[in-house]
């Protein structure tokens, strides 16, 4: 069996802001169809690395290749239409209805999204198609983030980038939306890279976890590998938190029983 061509390759990608180094040379390849979680503490450079993919941040050294092409050589507007992006701030356009927000990507290239397609996208993220005519400020936080996901999917992207997508949501909504995204990833055959600081979320959703520390990639493991002690000290410190919480909860349940 031949390995397929990687969809995304980081080739020594680095980013510095003056003397401060945000990303200090990261190299790895991401295969089509994989769900990769990018985990690390605040300031570890994970968001910066993610934004290099759709050139919201340009590398100061090294390259990022998307289907073999250096992303900085692609016209940014064209590149970003092939890459769905969901982030914590959501960034729905407040002066556009839900339908207009979802249809914005295709509209930019002169395509009109049919109302049926908008309804379908809303159903995909488990929203009532009747919400299409609402304005963003009439929605709850969870609904808004679902619209954000629908907007990212509207252009039928080859790659879905998510930057702390559920960070501002309550735990119940967060869990439900996480499962939904994982489900869509499988159903639509997406390649997904998700930045999160929550190791539990990464372990439960991803099939590959990259751990960053101080701008460097310090672990590249499967969730199973991490749970069995691989990945080194930084990764294990991050895994220890949810594991310990789970053990304590199990203890409490044991005592109650």
């Amino acid at each position, binding site marked *: 069996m031949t390995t397929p061509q990687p969809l995304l390759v980081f080739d020594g990608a680095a980013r510095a802001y003056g003397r401060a180094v945000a990303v200090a040379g990261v190299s790895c390849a991401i295969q089509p169809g994989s769900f990769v979680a990018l985990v690390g503490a605040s300031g570890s450079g994970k968001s910066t690395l993610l934004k290099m993919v759709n050139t919201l941040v340009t590398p100061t050294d090294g390259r990022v290749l998307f289907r073999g092409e250096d992303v900085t050589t692609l016209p940014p*507007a064209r590149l970003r239409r092939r890459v769905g992006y969901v982030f914590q701030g959501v*960034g729905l*356009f407040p002066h556009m209805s839900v339908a207009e927000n979802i249809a914005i990507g295709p509209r930019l290239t002169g395509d009109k999204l049919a109302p049926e397609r908008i309804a379908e996208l809303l159903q995909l993220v488990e929203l009532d198609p009747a919400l299409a005519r609402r304005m963003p400020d009439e929605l709850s936080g969870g609904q808004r983030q679902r619209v954000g996901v629908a907007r990212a999917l509207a252009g039928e992207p080859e790659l879905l980038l998510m930057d702390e997508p559920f960070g501002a949501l309550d735990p119940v909504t967060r869990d439900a939306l996480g499962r939904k995204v994982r489900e869509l990833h499988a159903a639509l055959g997406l390649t997904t890279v998700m930045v999160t600081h929550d190791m539990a979320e990464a372990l439960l959703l991803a099939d590959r976890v990259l751990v960053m520390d101080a701008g460097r990639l310090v672990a590249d493991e499967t969730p199973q590998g991490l749970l069995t002690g691989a990945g080194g000290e930084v990764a294990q410190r991050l895994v220890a938190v949810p594991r310990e919480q789970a053990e304590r909860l199990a203890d409490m349940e044991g005592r109650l029983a």
Partner: protein
Amino acid sequence: MSAIWDILPGLGDKLAAHVVLSASAIGLAMLIALPLAVWASRSQIVARLALSLASLVQTIPALALLALFFPLLLSLRAVFGEGLPTLGFLPALMALTLYALLPILRNAVTAQANLDPGVLEAADSVGMTKWQKLTLVEAPLSAPFIMAGIRTASVWTIGAATLATTIGQTSLGDPIFAGLQTQNWALVLAGCLASAGLALAADNLLWVIEVGLAKRARWMTFGGMAAVMLGILAALWAQGSASEERRIVIAAKQFSEQYILAQLIGARLEAAGYAVEYRDGLGSAVVHSALASSNVDISVDYTGTIWTNYLKRTDNPGREAMYETIREWEARENEVKVLGRLGFENAYAFAMRSDRARELGVASLADLAVVAPQLTVGGDPEFFERPEWIAVRDAYGLSFGKTRNFAPTFMYNALQSGEADVISAYTSDGRIAADRLVVLEDPKGALPSYDAMLMLSPRIAADEGVIAALQPLVGAISVEAMREANLAVDREDERKLTPKQAAAALAKTLRRPGLDPGPLSSEK
């Protein structure tokens, strides 16, 4: 105050001119400020520079800003040729545009700076080009704030446009300035009422657009815009239908005598079949240049004024020599024809209340010098900068305790109320007689003469019809007749006349028509 309601309907053409001027200035300011704001949102340096410059402009008084464009445009004639207008619409438009920039620019820049960074990131991440980001996201989200800036600019501009009168642009300032000078308060109020009404109407219509933009209520936005456009089009139409062939433009500076003489001249020209137009309330400094450049055609100016301000002379060769030198200089340097002297002087003189003069024992400037340190002297705003003042001050060693500036009209009131002990009066002023003031003697002859001269622009300098119509005014107005006419306009009782009525009365008292009186009897 029923007079106001009689005046208001007659202000239609002023209102139309005011609307066209204000709308043009705001439109031009938007054309400059909005692209500049976009640029500023992408460059800190541009933002800081543009806002500082716009703020700097705001610190210049509107009146000064308007006046400054006259010399600027005059010097630009070297580049653009003699056809460049230096007075009227163009300088008014430029000054008001500069004035309107700040609120539009500041609101636009602030609106852009306050846009939600998440929304901007989303715009980039969905693949918008810079232009799409501007038109689809930044502009619609900033629009209500920008509209608020345009509202502020409109109210300011409509108010400041009244000052355009001083540089020869017709506006609602015409009745205000004319009324202030002739103490016709109904005229002042009518002008203020009209411009305030216009400002309020504009503010409200623009508010409708602003709310429409903020609430995304299209009918409000477009309805408001349609109403604004309709108003501007109506004004343009009114103005377009009013403009005819070039008329003879008569200038008047900002005091009663000038308004009366302009009416007197106008009446004679109309009687001779000419179409005339009045450019009232011009700043004293711009009248001469306006005449030399044929922006206005007829003015009445004074020998002493031309002597010091334009010939830059400080000597005093005597009345006749001064007049002949000016006449010759005007013809040679400016192609301006000095038709002749009207027969009276409006010279600077020092006047006191007679009781105060008696009390202090002052009859001449020499006496005044002794008590001056305990006195307050009042003068018009330019007086203490003028060489006449310096000449008199140095000749008699005058040193006053306090120096105060008053508008010419209020100087006499200040003298009556005791806010000033001595004022720089004008010899033809009717209030000298009315208030029984003492005009102090000038034994050293330090004050130069100020013969009123009738002056014609190069454009009509050789127009025989005009010369024939105006020749009878030469030497025909005595200082007593002029004082009486001035008093009739300046007084505040029921015998008060409009400049036009006073001019008609003055026309009946003309003496020895048609002869330059030669050496005139001094009336100081």
